[in-house]
């Protein structure tokens, strides 16, 4: 029979508000973290990254915060716009070598006008 997929967590924000998307990672030895944005029908696109020796990194309208104590990563989007509507994934680079990334399941961001 037809399988039903799991529903993604959804964050709804008003246009112009700030958005905060959270991610819990699994490996305390991970040394690199990255956020991707995936719009409907497209592949994931890089937003911002951070290394484990940093707590915060800022880009254009986006900020990533890393709390290694509780293994938590967050993505803050300032002045959210309709074009920010997408699924956002965090990913971590563990100790397995190479450039392997382990991805979270994603959060759906919906921007309401």
């Amino acid at each position, binding site marked *: 029979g037809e399988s039903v997929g799991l*529903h993604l967590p959804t964050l709804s924000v008003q246009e112009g508000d700030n958005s905060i998307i959270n991610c819990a990672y699994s490996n305390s030895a991970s040394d690199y973290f990255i956020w*991707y944005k995936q719009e409907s*029908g497209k*592949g*994931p696109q*890089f937003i911002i990254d951070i290394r484990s020796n940093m707590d915060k990194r800022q880009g254009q309208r986006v900020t990533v915060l890393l709390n290694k104590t509780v293994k938590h990563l967050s993505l803050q989007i300032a002045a959210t716009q309709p074009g920010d509507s997408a699924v956002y994934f965090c990913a971590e680079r563990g100790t397995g070598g190479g*450039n392997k990334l382990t991805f979270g399941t994603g959060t759906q961001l919906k921007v309401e006008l």
Partner: protein
Amino acid sequence: DVKVTQSSRYLVKRTGEKVFLECVQDMDHENMFWYRQDPGLGLRLIYFSYDVKMKEKGDIPEGYSVSREKKERFSLILESASTNQTSMYLCASSLIPGQGAYEQYFGPGTRLTVT
């Protein structure tokens, strides 16, 4: 800009068919990856390759094989497609560690339906 292309956006195959998904990158990246993406499960790594003719199993390699005969091209093969392989397939590429960046660049995806 890095460009990763995949041979098809949409593909419909029958159970038992052999399926080839092709991926090409134009940035001379050493690493290439194949993922499948299913609702609520995120991206799961099927296989990856860190050099020509080299391959390593990812987290869910069963039912799949890969081929990397040229640096820019990485193929995913479903030897005998089954309905549980209906999914979105994403290809990615990246530089090797030590070159300062771990970012993976993704293609647009191939939505495969097996009937």
